[in-house]
């Protein structure tokens, strides 16, 4: 249990994003509440990454409003579609993030050791982060985000470039973080992954939110033709 007010729910009202005459996101209404794993599903170019960036505050929407219950720094973390690591050791990448979050030198070291152990990266702690494999890098950026004890974790296609084995490990990590009380908001274009992880689905298609609701309903009775076609595995563009 947390001893401070939750930043959730996150409420989006008519959030739009326009870039040179191109409406990339079209009046998105959505509510992300504490608890369920929210998956933003949609084909390539639907606007998933952009929506996640807007939710995380990296990009200002050109229209509409976005509102957290309360504002608290360091309550959110984000894992990007391509892992971004500093040219430092594996451990230093984590202690650096902890330093920005205000951890003391001792706590940084202890926390870093702890999460590296959990991620199975302890033997690599002193290696340059750049020599890690793609799967290990993804584990590391997840561990870095987890180290910060965020209340909300944004994940942008965290397994897009991984093989099934590595995907499984990452999905288990995500499940464990969720079980520990972290709100998961993640994007994917992988139906199988959505079936495995989603509690609720937000289906995005060409910048429009076509469906939002319980995952079970989405998979059994999709409400729109686009979602139905996407579920049948048809090429939706």
């Amino acid at each position: 249990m947390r001893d401070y007010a939750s930043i959730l729910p996150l409420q989006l009202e008519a959030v739009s994003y326009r870039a040179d005459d191109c409406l990339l996101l079209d009046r998105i209404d959505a509510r992300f509440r504490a608890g369920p794993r929210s998956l933003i599903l949609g084909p390539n170019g639907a606007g998933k990454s952009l929506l996640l960036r807007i939710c995380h505050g990296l990009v200002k929407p050109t229209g509409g409003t976005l509102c957290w219950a309360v504002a608290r720094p360091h309550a959110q973390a984000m894992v990007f579609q391509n892992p971004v690591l500093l040219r430092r050791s594996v451990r230093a990448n984590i202690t650096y993030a902890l330093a920005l979050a205000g951890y003391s030198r001792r706590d940084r070291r202890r926390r870093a050791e702890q999460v590296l152990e959990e991620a199975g990266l302890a033997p690599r702690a002193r290696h340059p982060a750049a020599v890690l494999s793609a799967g290990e890098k993804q584990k590391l950026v997840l561990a870095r985000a987890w180290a910060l004890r965020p209340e909300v974790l944004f994940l942008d296609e965290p397994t897009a470039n991984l093989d099934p084995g590595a995907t499984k490990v990452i999905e288990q990590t995500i499940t464990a973080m969720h079980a520990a009380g972290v709100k998961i908001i993640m994007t994917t274009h992988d139906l199988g992954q959505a079936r495995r992880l989603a509690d609720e689905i937000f289906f995005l298609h060409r910048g429009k939110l076509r469906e939002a609701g319980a995952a079970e309903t989405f998979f059994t009775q999709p409400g729109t033709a686009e979602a139905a076609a996407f579920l049948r595995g048809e090429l939706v563009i």
Partner: protein
Amino acid sequence: MVSDPTTAFAAAWHLVATGDRELYAVVALSLRVSLTALLIATVIGLPLGGALAVYRFPGRGAMIALFDTLMGLPPVVAGLAVYLLLSRAGPLGDYGLLFTPAAMIIAQTILITPIIAALTRQFVEDDWHAYREQLTSLGSGRGRAVPTLLWNCRYSLMTAVLAGLGRAMAEVGAILIVGGNIAGVTRTMTTAIALETSKGDLPFALGLGLVLMVLILTVNGIARLGGLMIQRAGAGYA
């Protein structure tokens, strides 16, 4: 006076090998001037280049263009500007710095700060594009990002600093104008070579030339080593 090359070489080698005091005093002064200028230029150039890479403000483009241009500033022009600044009638004339090592340090600092700042700006800006969102997400502002990215670019920045040192050590025009090549006071390797050659004292000029070559080779060796480290960084820290 010796003028045939073989005898001159032999005499030069004698001066170098026996540790001729005058020769090594000139070498020591050269190193003191260029290394001090390098230190000052690095302390100014790295944060300046880093800040130019990360901050957006009116006039930024003009500043970047200015530094890029100053990279190619002819040393004699820099020397002339410092001369006018420091001469009796100049705005800083009261300090009596003209024809002292301090004047040479000022001139070389003006020559190499733009190199270090401009190269730093380039390297850090590339990194800023790659890291901006991640650093912002972790709660770092632009100010905090500057030291982070300077450290992130450390291998490339070493090359920038060595380029600055190379320019300072090889330069003769600026320090000749503001230093005056006074024996025992402002005589450096490059100014002495220029002067002794014109006077016909080839052994001394050649001896200095040999030492200068060795020093520049050493700098190049260090730069090469840096390059190798960067290559290894391609597999390691890149």
